[in-house]
């Protein structure tokens, strides 16, 4: 049974009471919230995710609560609670859905130490994965959203889940978080794409989440081996340029982009070495998604020759 198979009233009731249990990549989440926007956005963006029975083990229970007392009516708030504790400062209720997404990221990045976790997007073609690490504002999510609508498969927009045994990357397959101008860029690039309502004035500016392509979920159990590590950078007006980058420096940068490299100690070093050993590393500068698609297609073609 998928979320899409639940009637709106059943979905609302589950979210408000015991929670809605979803399988998301290798994890199970119980989502609890009485905020109507969360139910609406889940209907729109999570329709194809499996709903689990209430007797299944749940990795993370995410509660997005409302403020209490008078505040609930005067300044409605959305509050992320985990194990009963408030993790972030409360946000306006308006921000509830992006907050839910951030909260789910937090759960994984703080606890899933059975993976090496990198802050990066991951896409795949022909079993080979591209890791796209980058600081916010570099156009990582825009590039990722563009490419997964031009022949690449989305593994993750935010978190690379790397196996501690063989460095394979497990798909997470969550909606892609787009900010500010990127929202319109992808609207134009992907006609018919499904977005969550744009939320303005968040700490990251205006935010909207993009529904994943169907292939992401039908192939959610297929892992991929790392083959490229590419550091994207959006530079307005630039021509696309792919520049080789030293493996040593790329490894340092990936370590810096990791949530738990330090936690894993020697194991983290060994896994990251495997990733880098298996990967060609590049810097990639671009301004147009069409150009980027051509450059990435060329990577795959050159690999086969």
């Amino acid at each position, binding site marked *: 049974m998928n979320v899409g198979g639940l009637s709106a009233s059943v979905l609302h009731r589950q979210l408000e009471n015991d929670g809605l249990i979803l399988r998301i990549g290798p994890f199970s989440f119980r989502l609890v919230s009485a905020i109507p926007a969360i139910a609406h956005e889940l209907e729109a963006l999570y329709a194809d995710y499996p709903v689990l029975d209430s007797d299944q083990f*749940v*990795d993370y229970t995410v509660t997005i609560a409302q403020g209490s007392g008078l505040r609930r009516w005067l300044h409605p708030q959305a509050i992320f609670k985990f194990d009963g*504790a408030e993790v972030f400062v409360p946000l306006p209720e308006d921000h509830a859905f992006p907050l839910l997404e951030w909260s789910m990221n937090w759960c994984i990045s703080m*606890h899933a130490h059975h993976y090496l976790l990198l802050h990066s997007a991951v896409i795949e073609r022909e079993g080979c994965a591209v890791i796209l690490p980058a600081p916010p504002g570099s156009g990582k999510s825009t590039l990722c959203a563009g490419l997964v609508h031009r022949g690449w498969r989305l593994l993750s927009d935010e978190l690379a889940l790397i196996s501690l045994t063989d460095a394979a990357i497990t798909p997470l397959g969550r909606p892609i978080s787009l900010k500010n101008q990127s929202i319109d860029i992808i609207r134009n690039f992907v006609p018919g794409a499904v977005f969550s309502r744009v939320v303005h004035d968040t700490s990251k500016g205006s935010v909207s989440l993009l529904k994943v392509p169907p292939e992401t979920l039908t192939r959610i159990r297929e892992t991929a081996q790392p083959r490229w590590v590419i550091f994207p950078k959006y530079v307005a007006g630039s021509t696309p340029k792919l520049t080789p980058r030293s493996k040593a420096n790329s490894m340092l940068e990936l370590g810096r982009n990791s949530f738990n490299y330090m936690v894993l100690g020697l194991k983290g070093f060994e896994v990251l070495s495997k990733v880098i050993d298996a990967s060609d590393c590049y810097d990639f500068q671009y301004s147009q998604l069409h150009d980027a698609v051509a450059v990435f297609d060329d990577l795959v073609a050159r690999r086969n020759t």
Partner: protein
Amino acid sequence: MSTGLLESIWTVPERRPELSNREWETLLGQARQARLLARLAAHHIDQGWLTEVPDGPRPHLEGGLRLADRQQHEVRWEVDCIGRALRGFTSPVVLLKGAAYLMADLPPARGRLFADIDLMVPREQIEAVESALFAAGWICEERDPYNQRYYREWMHEIPPLRHVQRNTYIDLHHTITPPTSRFNVDGSKLLANLQPLSGHAGLYVLAPTDMVLHSAVHLFQEGEFGHGLRDLLDLNDLLLHFSKSNGFWDNLLNRADALGLQIPLFHALFHIQRLFGTAAPEHLQSRVERLGPNAFSRTLMAWMLGLALRPDHPSCDTRWTGLARWLLYVRSHALRMPPHLVIPHLIRKAWMQRFPEKKAESA
């Protein structure tokens, strides 16, 4: 019910829990909140159960253990750095609590998480040690003059010191309880009874009896009970370990008398016996009984602590938990300072929590 899930693991340590998926979730949540996840994992390894834990919860236990292993590695590193920074000092530098358990290889170190490293030095050395640590990169970040004064005049420690590069924290003490406290302990009495840490010249840990008493007094004076169960488990481990040597319990009770810490020891022993069944030997039972306060205080404290020592997790909350925690919080302050100091202090603290912007303006 799930309320006692986490404590019950250590009530009968060799009894393997039979848990539903939902109970596993609750147990892991309670353990995370009580900072006992890695300890729970270590317990499963010691009992040989880890491989039989279902696939759902097992990665959570293993992940907790990885985090604790890494922190312990880092604490050893930090202790080396501290040792180097304070090498010139002739007066002793004492590791307290977690760092002491770890470096002295004591049982509570297993699966223990760390937030900071607690050090104790003679009071007259505080400034010199602070400067030496400053030279090695640990800075005091407390800018608020009121808080500076609160710590330096009334407390047994100075404000936390943060390492500028590694973001690790040191709490520097000159004794184990505030000088204004009802249970004030003269630091020099503790310093007279230290044990050297082998392999680390200049570093010491407290004597076994003092380590137990410090852990007991810490549990009840901090006012925050999020780590209460963890602290009780620490104490239980220490008691089981030290009581292997003859005369430990007699020494412990004598030392509690000498330092005036009978009441904290009484409450700690009461709850350790209640939860884990560890008790003083037969011939000392009546003496332990006499440590305690009057019957009314005993009953009230037993009730409040019984609630507050549960993990701070929604599955453990009753309608009275909040009240019990608040009463204990107020009590902890009342023990720390006499009324003419504590009442203005708590009012100021409550005000600052409500109107933090005002603080920025007035600073």
